[in-house]
Structure formats: structure tokens, C-alpha cells
């Protein structure tokens, strides 16, 4: 079972997409060590198999969401390395994933001229192996393994997966977001109490401010610029944040009755927006509730962008790809508008070192472009962080909701994870692990083991309250990989053993000058007075029985004033017997007679 988890950590581990993402460097080392170019682009799947076919090793592959660092290697994995088992993902992911993969392929193969990459046909073949799942739907992969998806926020269709074998379970979160945003809700999981929770920890050491301030700042800046007659450029990546910002601006335009046009660069986005319109149930409360009147993704104010529009006079807002201003349309527009101080560029996310985005964010005002051109940046440069990962508080909240017995941190930097690990152990008192690539972690679970019980014993032991926990006595027989609880007699019979009786005897000395039978009578009266709930009998042969415990009295050989009480009980009556001895040791009450 652990194989499966292991597998998708690897798939998601590290892919070299267009630009490496620095926040998730934890699994990078392994990928960088391998020499071949292709190998470096994709994770090293030989970790799983050493040698042999993948399909034999893996029961299934689960894709949590459509971001390329989570599904980019999928066609390579299934078509080139060779995997024929089922691949599970949610419906929106299944819809959007191939678009992104195709785009990815185009950029790498057509633009950069790489060879030995997966082809369009491979993407199609790969998608044929995909089984789509609904939220909270339990899918039986084989006789033992079952999986179940939970809502994860983050991007459309992102899901957390619970993987269950028998009574042991693992929850893998993928990327998730615990605070709702303008188009998606917050991740949610029930108290499923998994044995292990594998969670991302991108923001292990960050507690973020309320998103409202950020949103308000963003809107205010855009609004002010537009009112001044300036143009706003927002470089974005096509999917995810872009839709959130669109909704944000669209509703603001609607609310404030603004007229300035908003454009969105076409292509990939158009198709993706179509899927956002379709998967309304995956969005947040507001969009779900209002879509009957109007689907929020049918933008009224946002129109498709045409290259010629960039030169139009008057205010406008343009969303353009890519997000770090390193190439393409966004860079073209940026060059056109950079000279005017009325204009503004808003970077809604992180920029990697070396890109134009990073340069202008760090305050550089003169940029050297291709062909020794110097571009002077007069436009205002803003930075707004819109990130859809759970922060430290969010991670803790998810752990609190799910109540796992062990936590494993992935997808983060080791130093930061160390802090979070310590916090988790301190506050939830559960074990927390953070293995490096290639490291094996052993987790001990307390699986509950089913035991057969004979009907006779069950009926005998549980009289009334069937549902309450109750102590029962019986003999556990472990034989041929099966467990049975049977009555002791039956166990003896089955195993062909004779029953041994274990008897405790104890002598208690009592100072009593009277005759033996008088002493016995006193003891009898005393016990009868104290043990009202038990049957105390005085037998004709001069002994006393309390239930099955026998008490006899004899005079001491040397000292006639001392009587010796012999108390004898079987192992089963140990409790009562020891109580009785301690009672007798206290001595008899000074009788009135």
C-alpha cells in the first residue's frame, strides 16, 4: 500500500517545468543527480521498481490536481516508462490536464526544439487510462485498496485523497488551501483519523494576513490607475490565480459601475474558462449560489485581447501570460507601456531570479533588452501576493480536522519543515516525519484485528448491553493465520489438554480462646454480616463456604488460644478470595457476647 503513496510523491516531487519553482526544492536533489537531459526533466521512476515493470509494483496512480509540477510527468510515466494500471483524478482535473500537457509539450518541443519528449498521441493515450472520481466517492481499486477524494481548494478540481486498506489509511493532501478565495472554497476533510497524513508544507513557517487587505489593495490600485486614465498590466499564468483575479475585477467592475475595458489574452485561457463555467459545483459558495441567475465565469466586462488593443488610447486592464514577464505577450505589452508613468504593472506572484519580473520588482529602473536596447521603466510596479497554499495555521487546522495518528511533511524546505514538525509534535502529540528523497520512514500502526468468537461464548458473556464496551473472558486461539476466541473448555478440548486446577490456600491466625465450632460460628456470623450479596453457608462438617471458597478452622497445635483459619480458593475466585483473607486478617469484631 505504501508503494502507491511513494509513487505519487515522486511524480509530484520535482519536474523541471519552464522555470524551476524554488519553494519546493526538497525533492530536487535526486532529479539533478541523474545525467540524462530527459531524466532530469522527469522524476527518476527507477526508485520504485529498481528493475521490473511499473504496473507490477503499483496498484494505481493518483493525481491530485492539474498543476504541471503534479501531473507533468504523467504521459512520460504511463507511455514512455510504461504503466498500464488505473490513473485516478477528479473530473475537472481530467478535463483541464490534457490542455496543459499539450501546451507544455508545444513549448518544449516546438519552441525549444527538444526531442525525445512525449507526443500528442501519448497524451491522448494516457488520458484514456484515467478514471475520473467524484468528491467523497469511495472507489474500490482492488479487493483491498479503496480511495476517496476530498475538496482541497487550491485550484479547480484539486483534491486530497484518502487511501485505505482494511482499517489502515493514509491521507495525501496534494496542494490545498484552508482559506477560501474569490472562486474556490476552503479545503475540508472529515474526522477520518488516518494512520498517516501526508501534507504539503510550502508555507510551513508563514502565517498570512487576511486576504481582504490584499484584495482591497489590489482593487484600489487598479481603480486609481484606471481613473487616472492609465493602463494596468497584470502578468499571470493561464490557470488558477488568473481566474481568481478575473472574478475579483469582474465583480468590482460590476459593483462600482466601471466602464474601462478589461482584456484577457486568448488561447489556452479561453478553453480553460469554459471548464470553469462547467464545474460550478467545485467553486465557492457565492458562485454556486448565484450561477442560476448568472454564471460568474461568463464575464461581462472581460473580453478577449487582441494585439492591436495595446495601442488603444484610454484606460484598460490587461491580463497577459506568462506571469514572470520573461517572454511572450506580457513582455510585449510591458515594453509598450513601460515608458508612461500613468501606467502600472501588478505582479501577482513570485518571480524567479533573472526574469524581467524579478528585476523590476527589486527596483531596477533601466532594463537591458535584446539587441542592446535600454528600456526605461517609468510605470509603477506593484507586487501583490496571491497564493493558494495553506499557511502554517491552515496546515495545523487540517491536522486538527482529520486527527491523524502520524503526520508526514512533504513539498517544502527542510529548515522550515523542521519548525512545523516540532509544532505538530508539541501541540497534537502525534509523531511527525519529514523524510528526504530516498529515505525510508517506518511508521508503526495499531491495526485492529478481527477475531472470530463462538456464538455460545458471546451469548454467555454479553447479557444485556450489546453495544457498550465490556470485559469478557475467553481463550484466544491463533491457528493457521486465523484468530478465534472460544471458551476455555472448548479450547482445552480442541487442543487436547487436560484442565489443571490452581488453588490458593492461606492460613489466618485469630486470637480466640473459645472452642473451634464457636469460632467458626463467629466467623460465619461476621462474614454473613459483611458479605450481604454473596451466599455464605455453614456446612454441617464445620466448614464455611462463601460462594466456592472454603474456610476451615482448627485450633493451633501449641497455643489453644489461637485458632488457625484455612482459606482456600480457586484461581477464578482470586478477587473474592484475596478480599476475604484481608477481611479475616483484620480480625473478628469484638462480639457483644
Amino acid at each position, binding site marked *: 500500500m505504501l508503494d502507491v503513496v511513494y509513487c505519487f510523491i515522486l511524480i509530484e516531487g520535482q519536474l523541471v517545468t519552464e522555470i524551476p519553482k524554488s519553494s519546493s526544492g526538497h525533492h530536487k536533489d535526486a532529479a539533478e543527480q541523474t545525467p540524462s537531459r530527459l531524466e532530469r526533466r522527469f522524476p527518476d521512476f527507477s526508485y520504485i521498481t529498481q528493475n521490473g515493470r511499473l504496473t507490477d509494483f503499483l496498484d494505481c496512480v493518483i493525481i491530485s490536481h492539474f498543476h504541471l509540477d503534479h501531473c507533468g510527468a504523467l504521459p512520460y510515466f504511463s507511455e514512455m516508462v510504461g504503466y498500464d494500471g488505473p490513473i485516478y483524478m477528479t473530473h475537472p482535473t481530467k478535463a483541464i490536464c490534457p490542455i496543459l500537457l499539450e501546451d507544455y509539450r508545444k513549448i518544449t518541443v516546438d519552441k525549444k526544439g527538444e526531442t525525445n519528449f512525449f507526443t500528442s498521441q501519448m497524451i491522448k493515450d494516457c488520458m484514456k487510462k484515467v478514471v475520473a472520481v467524484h468528491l467523497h466517492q469511495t472507489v474500490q481499486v482492488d479487493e483491498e485498496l479503496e480511495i476517496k477524494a476530498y475538496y482541497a481548494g487550491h485550484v479547480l478540481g484539486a483534491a486530497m485523497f484518502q487511501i485505505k486498506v482494511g482499517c489502515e489509511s493514509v491521507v495525501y493532501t496534494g496542494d490545498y488551501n484552508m482559506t477560501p478565495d474569490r472562486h474556490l472554497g476552503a479545503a475540508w476533510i472529515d474526522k477520518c483519523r488516518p494512520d498517516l497524513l501526508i501534507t504539503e508544507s510550502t508555507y510551513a513557517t508563514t*502565517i*498570512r494576513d487576511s486576504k*481582504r487587505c490584499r484584495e482591497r489593495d489590489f482593487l484600489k490600485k487598479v481603480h486609481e490607475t484606471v481613473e487616472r486614465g492609465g493602463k494596468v498590466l497584470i502578468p499571470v499564468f493561464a490557470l488558477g490565480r488568473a481566474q481568481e483575479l478575473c472574478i475579483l475585477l469582474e465583480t468590482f467592475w460590476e459593483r*462600482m459601475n466601471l466602464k474601462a475595458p478589461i482584456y484577457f489574452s486568448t488561447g489556452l485561457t479561453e478553453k480553460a474558462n469554459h471548464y470553469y463555467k462547467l464545474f460550478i459545483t467545485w467553486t465557492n459558495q457565492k458562485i454556486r449560489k448565484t450561477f442560476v441567475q448568472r454564471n460568474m465565469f461568463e464575464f461581462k466586462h472581460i473580453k478577449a485581447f487582441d494585439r492591436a488593443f495595446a495601442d488603444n488610447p484610454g484606460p484598460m486592464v490587461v491580463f497577459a501570460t506568462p506571469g514572470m514577464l520573461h517572454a511572450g505577450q506580457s513582455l510585449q505589452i510591458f515594453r509598450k507601456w513601460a515608458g508612461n508613468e500613468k501606467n502600472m504593472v501588478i505582479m501577482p506572484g513570485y518571480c524567479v531570479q533573472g526574469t524581467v519580473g524579478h528585476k523590476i520588482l527589486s527596483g531596477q529602473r533601466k532594463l537591458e533588452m535584446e539587441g542592446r536596447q535600454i528600456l526605461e521603466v517609468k510605470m509603477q510596479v506593484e507586487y501583490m501576493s496571491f497564493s493558494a497554499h495553506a499557511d*502554517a495555521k491552515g496546515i495545523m487546522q487540517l491536522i486538527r480536522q482529520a486527527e491523524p495518528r502520524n503526520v508526514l511533511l512533504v513539498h517544502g524546505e527542510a529548515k522550515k519543515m523542521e519548525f512545523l514538525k516540532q509544532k505538530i509534535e508539541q*501541540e497534537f502529540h502525534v509523531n511527525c516525519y519529514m523524510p528526504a528523497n530516498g529515505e525510508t520512514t517506518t511508521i508503526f500502526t495499531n491495526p485492529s484485528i478481527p477475531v472470530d468468537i463462538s456464538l455460545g461464548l458471546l451469548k454467555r458473556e454479553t447479557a444485556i448491553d450489546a453495544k457498550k464496551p465490556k470485559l469478557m473472558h475467553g481463550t484466544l486461539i491463533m491457528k493457521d493465520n486465523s484468530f478465534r476466541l472460544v471458551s476455555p473448555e472448548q479450547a482445552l478440548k480442541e487442543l487436547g489438554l487436560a484442565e489443571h486446577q490452581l488453588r490458593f490456600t492461606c492460613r489466618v491466625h485469630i486470637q480466640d480462646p473459645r472452642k473451634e465450632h464457636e469460632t467458626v460460628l463467629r466467623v460465619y456470623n461476621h462474614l454473613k454480616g459483611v458479605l450481604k450479596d454473596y451466599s455464605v453457608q455453614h456446612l454441617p462438617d464445620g466448614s464455611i463456604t462463601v460462594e466456592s471458597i472454603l474456610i476451615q478452622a482448627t485450633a493451633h497445635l501449641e497455643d489453644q488460644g489461637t485458632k488457625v483459619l484455612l482459606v482456600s480458593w480457586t484461581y477464578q475466585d482470586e478477587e473474592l478470595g484475596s478480599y476475604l483473607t484481608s477481611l479475616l486478617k483484620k480480625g473478628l469484631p469484638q462480639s457483644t457476647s
Partner: protein
Amino acid sequence: MAAHLKKRVYEEFTKVVQQQHEDLSAKKLRLTKPSKSAALHVDLCKATSPADALQYLLQFARKPVEVESVEGVVRILLEHYYKENDASVRLKIASLLGLLSKTPGFSPDCIMDDAINTLQNEKSHQVLAQLLDTLLVIGTKLTENPSVRMRLVEVACKHLTDSSHGVRNKCLQLIGCLGPVEKGVAKEAESQAAKDVQKIIGDHFNDQDPRVRTAAIKAMLQLHERGLKLQQAIYGQACKLLADDYEQVRSAAVQLIWVLSQLYPESIVPIPSSNEEIRLVDDAFGKICHMVSDGSWVVRVQAAKLLGSMQQVSSHFLEQTLDKKLMSDLRRKRTAHERAKELYSSGEFSSGRKWGDDAPKEEIDTGAVNLIESGACGAFVHGLEDEMYEVRIAAVEALCMLAQSSPSFAEKCLDFLVDMFNDEIEEVRLQSIHTMRKISNNITLREDQLDTVLAVLEDSSRDIREALHELLCCTNVSTKEGIHLALVELLKNLTKYPTDRESIWKCLKFLGSRHPTLVLPLVPELLSTHPFFDTPEPDMDDPAYIAVLVLIFNAAKSCPTMPALFSDHTFRHYAYLRDSLSHLVPPLRLPGRKLVSSPVSPSITPHEDPSQQFLHQSLERVYNLQHLDPQGIQELLEFTIRDLQRLGELQSELAGMADFTATYLQCQLLLIKALQEKLWNVAAPLYLKQNALASAAAKQILEETYKMEFMYSGVESRQVVIIHHMRLQAKALQLIVTARTTRGVEPLFGMCEKFLQEVDSFQRCFISELPQMQGSFVDKLLDLMPRLVTSKPSEVVKILQTTLRQSTFLHLPLPEQLHRASANIIEPTGESDNPLRFTSGLVVALDVDATLEHVQDPQGTVKVQVLYPDGQAQLIHPKPADFRNPGPGRHRLITQVYLSHTAWTEPCQIEVRLLLAYNSNRSKAAAKIAKSTWNESPEALPQPENGIEGTIPFSKPVKVYIMPKPARR
């Protein structure tokens, strides 16, 4: 195949018919039976199968049973209960027992023993649960009897060990509703029992079934509601329940914790895993705060709501709820709020445009960071950011309540409330604006906050803008830049949405009068005056200019140095505005000029107000002159009515009173005119003219009396008597007129009878008021009553005529406050020349927006009427949700009216107006009858035919141009 199907359908159909037939005959049989119980008995005996019996019982349950036969029916049912083997039938019988014991007037103590007995041998859990439910019904009817309750509680306790959750559930419910709650000082035994009840319920907090746990907590809450003081010991148990797996348990547990925190706020509880101790209310507050981030939104809403009512919590804990320690890469980071505040205090304008402006500062100690706090940390931050708007609204409400009681908290939560102004759901935005208004006494807005607040002024929703104007009316602004900013934004709003004019002017009025010293330095700039040059005179009709003037004049009221800065035309404009917009422009003492209006010093109480005096004097005059000649009386009345109407126009606060009395005098005048002796004595052929005049007068008086009764708020029973009296007189007049014009006596009999009945009911309604009506029409009539009853109709008419003429004019006492209901249709404006075109036969929606003042219960009474040119009238009842209540006595109706008509050849106007519907049964007098007759004579119920329903138009009609086009084919 099809034929076969058809055949089957027919077969089935005929079957159904047969069954109905059987039913019918059975019903007939039963109708002839003398008693219900006997019928039931026969039915149940006839029943061959359980299904049959169940059918009979179901039919039986549909009909009510008289009080007298309930017991008999119960006995029959019980008899069958013991005989019945089928559990479902027994279940139905048990539920019927409960239903029957609810019958009003029936005391179920006689069947209690039997009901308890049935419990003994019952095996089915469902039936047991139903029987316990029945016992609960019986118990709630017999709450007065402690021994019955004790007995039922004992029975419940006995069944608590049942293995079915349903039974345990009902038992706990029973204990909760009936368990003894008396303070056990008087009887030792009972106090013992009381203790036991709590313990018994408390034991089930750990039940294995979540439904039973919930029921146990609910039972405990029920006990609390009934007045039992819960023990503090439960607190620990309740805290454990907060971590339950089931949301309903957690939700109930949160409530229980809240109750306990209110009961024992000051007791001390230890903090687990440390040896510190804190107050219970603080601990509970922390726990409930923790639940604001629960997994289930139902619990979150519950928790957020309850936080608002925990006012005893210490401020240290309270302020934590807004604190979320931010960090980035393990370094302490300031929140955007803190940064904004710092920028503001350092006097710098926001630079916030650099990347890394929010760069984290100092390193933080890893050990000190608590990610999941036991305390209240950040509860509201989470609540306000929640996914579900229900939670956000609850959090805003709670914030409001806490801020109202703690000024320092109000100051702190301001930033968060301001943030909520940008929520995606309008309801939440509106709620947070209202909240801000409510706490505005405690706060002063910083400039940056004001900026955010004012940004919302551009919202396209009218509700939001108006709420914001209301908020600005009562906000404190700290600087003159703030005032300037507010003015600029309001003017921007005005240009964007010209319909907001009134609301913006009103807002500026308050803004000016609250901040005179801040406005003072702005005056030259606002009026664009120049020390040396004359500036052009602004356009007087420009709403923006008026807005500026309203701000300045209101500030000048308490700032005597300001008028010195005015230029000449400002004074002229002042005079004009003071006259045209007197409600917005206050009287000013202007230097070098005559006082435009004498300042009304606020010390004068309304009674000494000259206009009030005038009103009273003119009324006195009318009432005192009893014996003037008819001509003189008529003239005096006419003059007084004219005076009053004018007074009402001038003095808006007396308008209601003046109109009310004027209407009354008008009625009197009409009556006097109609009764003029000369006319009645003329020969028969001239009756016609007289007839027309008198019957029109009678009709008008009737209408006016209904207006007086239903259109004014604040009418007391003293006035209602007079109004009814006037109505009675009008009816008498009607009778006289009819008697004179109709031939034959037959129809008169009925009319006389009816009139006398009305007199009778008048007497019954207002018996207590009669002594004050000496010499009035009714007084005299009642004296003559014995004679009237026996005499012929013609006789009666004659008597009536003389009494009417001789009767004195009743003095109408005035209530303290009287307001006339009024309505003003804002939209449609009626100015559009573009017809609303639509295809005939289809509907078109017309937006109607109106303000209503002094209307009681507008949801029930206000209707929209649409009059088409062909005389067709349509009455529309707006939905209750269409009414908003922006302030006391004010309502706002925003609704859609659907119009439709057949095709017209050219556009034409329709009229839209608002009506006030009334029903005389609903009036206070009728309520009185109903009350008084309830016990005495149930057969004389208020006659439904007396209830006259009608409508009073109370708004100016608005014309809308529409054009139904013929449909194209």
C-alpha cells in the same frame, strides 16, 4: 403491446373507482352513528388486518374530536391497543393518544395512568418512543401538578436503560421538559430529585449514540430555560463534548458551555497542563472561539453567534480575538492594518508600492509561537474570513455586540469591519456597514480607514450606498482632510447616481453639524471665494453646490465666525435654501442682517410651542360654541378646517394631529349640512336633490372615519370611540335617507334591525367609555332603546332624525403623538416619455420603489394598485421580503409589479399607487369584542359580516407610459 398496456391501465383505473365507492359508503354509515367513539369502535372491530385498522385510524385522525367524547375515544383506543399485535397499529394508536390529549379543554390526567400502564408490556422500541412522546404531551398539559410530573420523570428514568436510541431520546426529552426545577428549600425530597435529574442527564453525555448525547444536552438546556440552576460540575463534561465526532453534539455543547459561562462567570477553573487558573467565562470564551474554526459550518455559525453575547469576558481575552500573529519564514511580520496605522501616525503618505514593503522584521522565538492556541487568538479573524457567508454575518453581528459594550474593542475591530465592506456578498457588506453605524459613538475614523469606507460609495447597490450615508451621518472624523475627502467622494457619488440627492444632502447636514471646527478652515476653498477677486456666482440649482452649502450652513450653526467668510451671494442663497429646503438648512444668526427666522430655543417643550397652542385654541373654540346658529357653526367649522390644514402644511411635526382633527371637523360639517332642517321639510319631489346630497355626505363620512381609524399611527381607544360614534351617526343618516326614498316598509325592517344591532355592539365594545359621552347621539339613543326596539321602522326613523339633530358635538381628545401614514413613490418617476414596450399577453416587470412613513405592519397592509386606462384595476400584494426597515417608523418598499394587457394601438398611461388595506375586524375595537366575549358567551362570536374590508389610497398616483404591442405572427 400497446393494446395490452391500455387494457391494464383501464383495469387499474376501475379498481380505483371501486375503492372510492367503498370508502364513500363507509363514510355514510359513520355519519349516521350517534357518537364518534362508538363509530371508531365498530370500525376497529370490523378491521380484519392491521393494514385495515391502520387505514381506519388514519381516516379518524383527520377529523377533530369534541372535548366531551375524547375520553371515550381514548378508552376505545386503549382497548384495541392491548388487543393489537401489529406494532405499526399500536404506534398509530399511541400517536393518536398524544394528539387527542392535546384537544383544548380536555384534561388528560384521567388517561395518564392508562398511558403509563401501556408502557409496561411494550416490546417495540418505536412504540415505546411514541408512548413516551404521548406522555410528554400529557405532562406538558399538566405542568401545574408536581406529583404527576414526578411520576412521569420516574417512568422516564426507568426507560433510560433501553437499548434503542429513540426511546432514550424521548426519555431525556421528557426529563428535560418535566424534571423538577423548584429551588429545593421547601421540600428536601424534591431538591434531592432535582440534583438527581441533572446527574441522570449528565450520565448520558457519554452515551454511545450521538443522537442521545444531543438529546441529553438539549434536555439540560431545557432545564436551564425552565429556571433550574445548572451545576458547575457539568462544565468539564461539556468541554469534553466539544471534541465530539458529530456536529449536532458539538453545536449543542457550545450552547451549554455558553449557558454555564453566563451562570458562573467568575468561578475559577484550572488550565490543564499548567498550574494556572482563569475565570470560567474567559475559559469558555476561549473554547467557543476555538469552535469558530470547527469543521462544520453549523457549529461555526453557532459559536460565532454566541461570542457576541459574552460581555463579561476580560478585555485581554477579547482583544486576542482580533490578533493573528503573522510571520514569514519564522520572522515576525506586521499586519497590513498595523502598517497602515504606522504610516498614518508617521505622517507619511502611503508608499506601499515597493516589493518587500511588508518584509518581515524581527526574528521570533520558535518556542513562543503557538499555532493552535487554546485561547481566543484570531477567532474573529477566522470568522470574518470564513467560506460561508452565514458564518461571516454571525461574526460581524458578534463583533457589533461586543464592540458596543467595550469602546477599546470597538477601536480595535474597526479595521476588520472596514475590510468587510469589500465582501463578495452584499448582505455581509450591508450588515457590516450597519454594525459600524451602531458602534460609531465609540470610534473615530482614521483617514486611511475613511478612504476605504468612502470607496464603497461607488457601489451600484442603492441599499449599500444609503446605509453608508447613514453611517457617515454619525461618524466622527478626525481631520479636516477627512471632511474634505468625504465631501469630494459624496459629490462624486452624486454625479454618478443623481437619485441619491436627498440622502447625500441629509448626510452632509449631519456631517456639518458634527464637525463645525473642521469645516471652518475649508470654507474659502469650498465656496471658492478669493480675497481680492470676485468669483462667478455658482448655479443655484446645481445639486452639488446645494450639497456644499448644506454642509457649510450646518457647520455655521455652531460656529459664529463662519458667516464672515461668506460672500454676498451666499447669503442670498441661504435665504432661498432656508425657505425651500427648511429641513436641511438650520436657522442662522447672520451678522448685519435681520434674523431670517427667530431661533427656536430647544428648551421650549412642545406643549408651550405656539403652533401647538394655536391648534388647541382653535379646537377649543369649536367645541365651546355649541349654541350658535347653524350658519355660524358652519362658517366657524369651515374656517377652522382651513386653518388646521394650513397649519399642517407649515408645521411638519404637527401635521398628523392637524390633519386628524381637520378630518374630524370635516365629518361634523358634512353631518350638519346634511341635516339642515330646511331641506328635509321640502315637498316630496325635491327629495331627490336632498337625497343625493345627504347620501353622498353619509358615504363620505364613512370613508373618512375609516381613514381616521386606520391611517394614523398612535390612535388610542379614546379616539376610536369618537370615530366609531361618528360612523354610527353616518349610518343613521343613511338609514334616514333610505327610509325617505324607498316605498314600502319591508326593506326597512331589515335595515332597522341591522342598525339596532350595531348600536348594541357599539355599546358592548365601548361600555367603559360611555359615561364620557353625555348628551351625545349614542347616549340619547341608548336612553330611547327600549322604545326603539318595539316601535315600527317609520317611528324609528323619526326618532333617529330628531336625536341626530339634537345631539351635541363630541369633543375629540388628542393623543400625545399622532402620525399620518404616508407614502412616496420614488420610482417610477412618471417623467419618462419613452413607453415601456412589451408584447401583449406577456408580462413586463415594473420596478417600484417607495418610502412609507408611519405605517404599522406594512407587510400586511400595503398593496400596490395598477389602474389601466380601460378602468381595469389590479391589486398586487408585495412579498414581505420587499419591505426594508431603515429606521423607526420608516419603511422602504422595493418590489416588482408585473403588468400585462391586450394589445393597444398606441402607448397610454397607467396609474400606479399604493393602498393601505384595512379590515375593521382587525381594529382595536373588534379585538376588544373578541376578548370580552370569549368567556361569557362563546356563541355570540364577532359577526364576520361586520368586518368591512377596504383600501385607502395613501400615495400620489404615478403615471407610467406603457405600450403592449400585438404579437407578431
